[in-house]
């Protein structure tokens, strides 16, 4: 087994492995099934090549050479099917049958004696020689490139319309194929056609790359950094090309020079291959060894990129200034082995804040602004103690005891200084440190700016909250006060009403006793005055009652004591009491009601409403009549009070039921006393008892008030 066989065998094993990966990881789709067929062809091809090369006698060789040409027929056939189906297309049945038949035909011709292969020869040295028949020259030679070309075309056509992901996948597959097939077709198809068999194993090896690319493209769904891969591939290809050319030429020329004989092509290939291995393994090996030696010799070495990304992670993870500075400084100091670190925040030419890692105690006193100012104003950046010439800046740095100063600058404004102490090793700052800090400074600046802005917003919102809380407290206080005042007012009104009512009751009782003749005979004139006094007193009582009612309504203490009661007696009683209003007026008052009307309501309040409405009608009517009728209607008792008074102006009708509205403005000279509360109270009371009130009025002619109360629900 020679070196080439080992390569072929390696390729075979790797292809089988990739095929397994592909089979196990790729989704079950027709397109991938087609590609698996391609891989199958490639594996078979590699296998055949291995056995062909290793075959000891002519018969075995002849068998494997047939296999060697049979298997490749599957590769483009599978690939064109993949091209048509990928990623999710349907395959025309006719195309499918055509491709399968074509493949079968080629396969058949490969096995048929003297069609593709006419024979083999095993020379004592060098590669075996294959003799080709008519089918090879006229069919096989075109079959393979043509199918590949078609696949290319199909995939390219799709490339334009597909999603970015699919495009990347296509790109990978084609890229791998281009690399692999250029070598493969040249070495395994073109060269052998011209009788050159020394490289006919190369295709098997290179196709491995193609399978690798395709597997990567399809198995790894999210293709990251395609550009990087492309760039790497291109650069590696170039490197390979340059190195190969260089070695081949130098081997040829040097070989001729030193050995004075022809160098065999096998030697060239092996040498080129070895040199490529050296070339490609050099970098990773170097890195690996460096890592090990670094670990042994430089404990404090750090990876700039790693540390930067770590620090970026830290500073972007928080907006709290203190946390941000503490955790990033901590990490920076630990990794770079620097003794101490401080961040000075500057504002309006003063040191606003000194931030340090947790272990240190921060004070502003330690830093004198005059020293800091020298450092701020220095153009040189960053400032490193060892690199500074003797002078004020070096002086200032020594004074504050720091070795490194980095300015945190936004445009022209310096928002802070990053101060770092001595390296723990006592060494000077390395170029790596300075590079790191130079990159870090602007990022740090942005992060601190953000944190400061966040702090401001937080402070603002805190102030705002305090303001709001204060205002709320004040409002609550005022509200409480108002509530107290309101309750005092209610109490006052309630008590005052009671106090007023007692004497009013006594007066009313006394006068009525006199009027009714229980205190002896009274003459007509005295009776007239006493009548007047009695009426005015009655009005006063009503007024006080209304005030009391308003107070109850306003304070929400209005309660209803619902009972079922008959209306007749109440109407009689109220009418009797109100008759005194008619004294001295040419007004007739008539009232009528349906017998046995029972309502469900608050009896006292119903009485008040009737007194109010009927009393009003009597009061405001100077001549004519007032008629009061009560009847049942649709589950309600309808009270209607019709008068021949002045009527109510349409504009006023709307205002009438509002608080403190009186409508005597239009009744010039007819103003009557009153609080203007009566109708408002009536409406509120009626609504509370499930009733309603409204009116019809013609200005100058009279008014009819209507109100309703619910009839008692019939029981059975």
């Amino acid at each position: 087994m020679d070196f080439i066989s080992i390569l072929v065998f390696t390729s075979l094993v790797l292809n089988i492995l990739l095929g397994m990966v592909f089979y196990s990881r790729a989704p079950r789709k027709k397109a991938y099934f087609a590609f698996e067929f391609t891989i199958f062809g490639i594996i078979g091809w590699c296998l055949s090549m291995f056995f062909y090369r290793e075959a000891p006698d002519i018969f075995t060789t002849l068998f494997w050479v047939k296999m060697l040409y049979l298997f490749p027929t599957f590769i483009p056939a599978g690939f064109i099917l993949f091209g048509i189906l990928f990623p999710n297309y349907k395959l025309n049945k006719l195309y499918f049958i055509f491709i399968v038949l074509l493949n079968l035909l080629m396969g058949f011709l490969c096995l048929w004696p003297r069609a593709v292969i006419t024979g083999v020869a095993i020379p004592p040295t060098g590669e075996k020689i294959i003799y080709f028949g008519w089918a090879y020259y006229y069919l096989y030679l075109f079959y393979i490139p043509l199918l590949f070309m078609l696949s290319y075309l199909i995939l390219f056509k799709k490339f334009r319309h597909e999603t970015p992901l699919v495009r990347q996948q296509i790109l990978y597959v084609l890229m791998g194929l281009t690399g692999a097939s250029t070598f493969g077709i040249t070495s395994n198809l073109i060269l052998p056609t011209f009788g050159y068999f020394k490289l006919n194993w190369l295709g098997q090896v290179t196709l491995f790359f193609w399978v690798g690319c395709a597997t990567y493209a399809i198995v790894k769904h999210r293709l990251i950094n395609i550009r990087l891969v492309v760039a790497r591939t291109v650069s590696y290809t170039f490197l390979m090309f340059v190195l190969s050319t260089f070695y081949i030429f130098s081997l040829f020329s040097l070989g001729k020079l030193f050995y004075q004989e022809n160098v065999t092509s096998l030697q060239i290939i092996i040498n080129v291959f070895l040199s490529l291995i050296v070339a490609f393994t050099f970098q990773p090996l170097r890195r690996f060894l460096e890592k090990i030696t670094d670990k042994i010799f430089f404990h404090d070495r750090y990876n700039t990129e790693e540390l930067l990304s770590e620090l970026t992670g830290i500073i972007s993870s928080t907006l709290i200034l203190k946390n941000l500075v503490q955790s990033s400084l901590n990490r920076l100091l630990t990794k770079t082995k620097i003794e101490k670190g401080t961040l000075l925040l500057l504002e309006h030419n003063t040191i606003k804040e000194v931030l340090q890692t947790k272990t240190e105690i921060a004070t502003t006193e330690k830093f004198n602004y005059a020293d800091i100012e020298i450092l701020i104003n220095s153009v040189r950046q960053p400032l490193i103690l060892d690199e500074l010439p003797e002078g004020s800046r070096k002086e200032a740095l020594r004074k504050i005891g720091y070795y490194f100063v980095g300015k945190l600058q936004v445009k022209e404004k310096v928002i802070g200084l990053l101060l770092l102490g001595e390296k723990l090793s006592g060494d000077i700052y390395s170029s790596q440190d300075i590079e790191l800090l130079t990159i870090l400074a602007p990022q740090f600046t942005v992060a601190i700016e953000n944190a400061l802005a966040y702090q401001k917003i937080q402070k603002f919102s805190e102030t705002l909250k305090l303001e709001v809380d204060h205002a709320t407290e004040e409002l609550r206080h005022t509200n409480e006060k108002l509530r107290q005042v309101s309750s005092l007012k209610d109490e006052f009104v309630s008590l005052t009403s009671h106090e007023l009512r007692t004497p009013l009751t006594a007066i009313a009782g006394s006068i009525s006793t006199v009027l009714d003749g229980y205190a002896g005979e009274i003459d007509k004139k005295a009776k007239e005055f006493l009548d007047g006094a009695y009426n005015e007193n009655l009005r006063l009582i009503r007024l006080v009652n209304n005030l009391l009612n308003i107070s109850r309504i306003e304070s929400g203490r209005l309660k209803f004591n619902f009972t079922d009661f008959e209306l007749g007696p109440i109407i009689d009683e109220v009418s009797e009491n109100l008759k005194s209003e008619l004294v001295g007026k040419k007004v007739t008052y008539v009232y009528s009601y349906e017998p046995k009307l029972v309502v469900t309501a608050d009896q006292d309040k119903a009485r008040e409403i009737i007194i109010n409405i009927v009393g009003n009608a009597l009061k405001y009517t100077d001549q004519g009549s007032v008629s009061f009728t009560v009847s049942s209607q649709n589950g309600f008792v309808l009270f209607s009070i019709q008068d021949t008074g002045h009527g109510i102006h349409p504009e006023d009708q709307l205002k009438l039921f509002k608080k403190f509205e009186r409508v005597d403005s239009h009744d010039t000279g007819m103003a009557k006393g009153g609080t203007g509360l009566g109708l408002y109270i009536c409406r509120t009371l009626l609504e509370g008892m499930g009733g309603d009130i409204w009116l019809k009025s013609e200005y100058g002619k009279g008014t009819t008030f209507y109100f309703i109360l619910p009839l008692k629900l019939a029981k059975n």
Partner: protein
Amino acid sequence: MGKILIVEDDPLIGKVYATRLSADKHQVILADNGESGLKAAKENLPDVIILDIMMPKMSGLEVLAELKKFPGTAKIPVIVYSNLARENEIAQAKKLGAIEFLAKANLTPQQLVNKIESYIKK
């Protein structure tokens, strides 16, 4: 003809009602505070008691509660009247066993007399 006790702190009102009832040949006993009213009720056992609420020494409601405790006076009809016709007082008076609650201001002497007489006939 009945025996009527009026417990009323306002002398004029008491006098008005006494005058009216005496005219109808009723015997009227006047008491000007809760305490003396309760005493008079126990001593005289009237047919009807008229009881004001807001009074010195003992409120009408307290008097009412006492009257209902004492077997001799428990069955006497008590008409509670007041100028302070608040819902809770009305409810309390009814709960304590007042036969009627009247608002003073809305009452004419004649109406009161009618009410009293309706209870005496019973």
